[in-house]
């Protein structure tokens, strides 16, 4: 048997459906973003850790020039090391039929007669290359898909100077390359970057590394101290041209995935609370009004002998019903969107399988948080209603007290119509409510700015990187350092308009107890293709001595201009390939250099110095690691053909292709993201404005009816309500800009990692768009409420007692 109060509840819900739905939608947005972000986060995290676990992803990574096999045993003796896997890895240019540009591949050896111990590949199709076969290769799935390569497909690779035909015998994935990015690229381009797994014996022969390795991965024991292992590993590898070991956090694929997961986590921490707070506020104002209208009924129920608890439960049930609708919509939407997002990630990141983590706990948490905030929002009004003695509750409330604004004497105010004064006084009479309404609307705009500003920042970043700093058309990386005369050779390639050398040297910078492994890039004086920009994005000249470093590096090392840093050279080419006794036991050389300036760089950890000074510091004849080129677009086919035949080139980066891929990926991802955020913002703005308007209308129906009786037109009467809403919305917009600015700033800080940092740019357009969306949503909801004013029953309104 349904109690009478429950029947009342049901009818109240039906009567209040529009407002209840508006609140429920705001709540649903909170619930769905929470489920979406946490769900996607957990799914990815779970997928990643299962993948790592099953395929034994390593903990520590290092490369060397050439380390003999026995070194592996030495390394296994380092305390804390559980397992080691050695291999040969080298970059190779790829020549693919039908693709004019050369692609870049990372060739890695697979053990011939045993299982991989670490970083096991997941074979999707086919098999591993036969031991000793120099013409067989297993490739990564993404590359295969990008080129529609099936088993048996053929392409060419330039391996240690020899162009070799390769046949695809297997298609695989690896936990090392969940996020696979080619040298010089900003984001993955599966067409232009490949993982190639080949027989160890074959690679040893090709690269003259018989009985030696140049790459090692370690699995650590539980509780092992990574920093200690890295230090000892570096000590062991030092004499074999080790370039500095690093842990997972510096492993590219892992780091990118981590950055993405962190973003999801911060999304789960920031966005849902906004929605839940706004919905709590909406419940508060709606319920306050409802209870004000039901004052007499509450008094009557009490007079009839209903207990306070029963009455309180009645209103709490109403809140819980609204919350339930919100949770239901939110849970469905969140699950659906979460799976979509996880799939989107899975396209971008390469996993062999996906684990959808859909723990009931997150639904339970989302539901209880929503119900709790909703109840908290309604509690005060319930309490007020319950504490009124029945007799007081049943008598009509006194007219609301208003006060003079204290500014009526002002000339400006004298010109305001009484209708305008009504609107202003009403706002001021309820400062908390007006303030919260403004804040709620502002949140909607702020959310939009937070979403849209990243477009501005990225656009700015693209412009800076591609058009201000790295203006070259292509960059060639050499397999190893080359004498400067290589520049002349490159210059004579067809279509090359200008060349500019660079040299990258792996170092560890130290300042006090802060240190960082990174690369110093040496550039020639007057470099014009690849330029260095100062913090105001103006090109700067390299000083003859000292380092220029990006803000990020300066921050990591706690240095400012003028400080001295120790430069420990890891990448010492003097030791390169030398196994003779003389090199054994040499200490790594360290130099002390001043920080000559702080510069702008959005990618990686950038440190620059003069090329000549760098070579001098290393006591070497001038050598270069690669060349930036400006090329003639009409001759790219000839140029690429020539490059494909160059043995010295290990990789090529193409600015144009990289930029195009960047735009393509951004376009997809940002369109989705922007749409989602616009929808969310509209829901907030609409929810807040609609509820405020409905409540105002309910409170002031007599006023509006009086005005109509006095001969004011519908338009004039609506004017009072719309003017008041307009004032609130207009006050909310600058606040939205300020909060949005803050959110955007926080986002930029959150984005900052060793991999990249975002410039903090918000364009005027973004402010304008956010204001327009808020205005649009507000106007739509206000107009819906306006229709109610038009249908106002004057007589009924005026003859009923408030």
């Amino acid at each position: 048997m349904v109690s009478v109060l429950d029947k009342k509840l049901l009818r109240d819900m039906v009567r209040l459906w529009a407002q209840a739905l508006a609140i429920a939608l705001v709540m649903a947005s909170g619930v769905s973003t929470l489920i979406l972000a946490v769900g996607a986060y957990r799914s990815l995290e779970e997928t990643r850790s299962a993948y790592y676990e099953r395929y034994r992803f390593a903990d520590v990574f290092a490369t060397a020039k050439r380390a003999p096999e026995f070194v592996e045993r030495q390394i296994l003796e380092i305390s804390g090391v559980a397992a080691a896997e050695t291999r040969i890895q080298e970059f190779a240019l790829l020549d693919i039929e039908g693709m004019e540009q050369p692609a870049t591949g990372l060739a890695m050896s697979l053990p011939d007669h045993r299982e991989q111990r670490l970083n096991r590949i997941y074979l999707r199709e086919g098999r591993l290359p036969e031991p000793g076969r120099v013409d067989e290769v297993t490739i990564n799935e993404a590359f295969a898909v990008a080129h529609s390569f099936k088993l048996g497909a053929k392409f060419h690779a330039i391996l240690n100077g020899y162009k070799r035909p390769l046949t695809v015998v297997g298609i695989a994935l690896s936990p090392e390359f969940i996020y696979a990015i080619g040298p010089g690229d900003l984001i993955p381009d599966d067409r232009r970057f490949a993982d190639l797994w080949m027989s160890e014996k074959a690679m040893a022969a090709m690269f003259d590394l018989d009985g030696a390795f140049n790459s090692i991965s370690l699995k650590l024991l539980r509780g092992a101290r990574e920093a200690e292992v890295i230090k000892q590993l570096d000590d062991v590898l030092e004499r074999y041209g080790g370039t500095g070991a690093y842990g997972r956090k510096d492993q590219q694929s892992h780091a990118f995935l981590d950055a993405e997961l962190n973003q999801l986590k911060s999304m789960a921490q920031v966005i849902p609370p906004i929605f839940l707070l706004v919905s709590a506020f909406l419940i508060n104002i709606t319920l306050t009004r409802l209870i004000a209208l039901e004052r007499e009924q509450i008094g009557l129920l009490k007079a009839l002998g209903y207990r306070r608890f029963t009455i309180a439960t009645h209103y709490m049930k109403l809140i819980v019903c609204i919350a339930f609708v919100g949770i239901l919509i939110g849970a469905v939407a969140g699950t659906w969107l979460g799976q979509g997002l996880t799939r989107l990630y899975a396209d971008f990141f390469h996993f062999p399988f996906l684990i959808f983590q859909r723990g009931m706990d997150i639904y339970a948490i989302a539901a209880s948080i929503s119900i709790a905030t909703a109840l908290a929002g309604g509690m005060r009004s319930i309490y007020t209603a319950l504490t009124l003695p029945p007799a007081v509750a049943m008598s009509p409330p006194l007219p609301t007290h208003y006060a003079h604004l204290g500014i009526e004497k002002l000339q400006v105010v004298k010109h305001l119509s009484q209708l305008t004064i009504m609107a202003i006084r009403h706002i001021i009479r309820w400062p908390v409510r007006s303030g919260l309404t403004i804040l709620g609307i502002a949140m909607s705009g702020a959310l939009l700015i937070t979403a849209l500003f990243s477009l501005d920042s990225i656009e700015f970043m693209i412009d800076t990187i591609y058009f201000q700093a790295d203006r070259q058309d292509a960059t060639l990386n050499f397999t190893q350092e080359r004498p400067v005369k290589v520049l002349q050779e490159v210059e004579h390639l067809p279509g090359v308009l200008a060349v500019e050398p660079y040299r990258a040297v792996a170092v560890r910078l130290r300042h006090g107890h802060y240190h960082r492994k990174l690369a110093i890039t040496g550039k020639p004086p007057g470099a014009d293709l690849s330029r260095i920009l100062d913090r105001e994005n103006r090109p700067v000249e390299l000083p003859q001595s000292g380092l220029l470093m990006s803000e990020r590096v300066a921050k990591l090392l706690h240095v400012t201009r003028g400080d001295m840093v120790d430069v420990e050279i890891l990448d010492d080419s003097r030791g390169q390939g030398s196994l003779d006794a003389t090199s054994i036991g040499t200490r790594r050389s360290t130099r002390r250099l001043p920080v000559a300036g702080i510069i702008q760089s959005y990618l990686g950890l950038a440190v620059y110095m003069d090329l000549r000074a760098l070579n001098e510091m290393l006591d070497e004849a001038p050598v270069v690691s690669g060349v930036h080129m400006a090329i003639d677009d009409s001759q790219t086919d000839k140029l690429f053909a020539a490059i494909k035949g160059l043995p010295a080139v290990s990789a090529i980066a193409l600015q144009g292709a990289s930029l195009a891929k960047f735009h393509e990926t951004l376009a997809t991802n940002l369109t989705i993201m922007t749409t989602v955020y616009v929808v969310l913002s509209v829901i907030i703005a609409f929810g807040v404005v609609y509820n405020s308007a409905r409540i105002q209308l309910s409170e002031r129906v007599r006023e509006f009816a009086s005005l109509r009786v006095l001969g004011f037109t519908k338009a004039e009467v609506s004017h009072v309500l719309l003017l008041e809403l307009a004032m609130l919305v207009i006050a909310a917009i600058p606040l939205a800009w300020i909060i949005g600015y803050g959110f955007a700033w926080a986002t930029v800080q959150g984005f900052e990692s060793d991999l990249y940092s975002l410039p903090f740019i918000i364009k005027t357009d973004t402010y304008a768009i956010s204001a327009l969306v808020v205005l649009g949503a507000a106007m739509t909801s206000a107009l819906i409420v306006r229709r109610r004013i038009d249908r106002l029953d004057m007589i009924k309104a005026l003859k009923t007692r408030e």
Partner: protein
Amino acid sequence: MAARKTKSKSKAKPDIMFKVEGLTKVYHTGELDIHALSGVDLTLYEGELAVLLGPSGSGKSTLLNILGGLDVASGGHAWFRKDEITQLGERELTRYRRDHVGFVFQFYNLIPSLSARENVALVTEISKYPMKPEEALGLVGLDHRLDHFPAQLSGGEQQRVAIARAIAKRPEVLLCDEPTGALDSKTGVHVLKALTSVNEELGTTTAVITHNMAIADIAHRVFHFGDGKITKTYTNKRRVAPDKVQW
């Protein structure tokens, strides 16, 4: 305009302000049709103070609402001077209320966020020949409460502000629905005084609804309502001054 009216009052036969013929009003509420007015004929003259008496549901309020342009009739005709108000559309009715009619209700319906003066100014701002808000409030004896908000005024004072607001635009007709209904007799007398003085000084045609027989004595003419019809009409031989009325 006011001057013209005062002059016309001295004529032997005053002009007709309202003429009503066979007016009917049916409310359709679900299964039941309620005949609020079933054929009312009536004439009100310029400058007249009429009292409409009758139990609730007898149709007096419905008639007043139709005359005031707040409601539309189901059948019959009603004229305001030469204009047939039963033919006017929504927009014209708003115009008509704005230009010609003043209303006073049982619940004062003041705007709580506006002071007494501003409540009156609300109307004077949209009228063609308004009096000053202070003048209107003076007429109802409230010149000392100009800047008080409704919440700071007594019920009788609030009702007098409502009257001041109704007359500030110098309407030709003043329609009052139970103006003293929520007031005690002492306060009610103040309100009645205000009404009669407006009627006398401005010559505003005034119709007052009440179910209080005693109040009928202040009128020129009295109309009795019952079951949606006028059952009795009579002219007061001798009008009683408002402060002599008791209930």
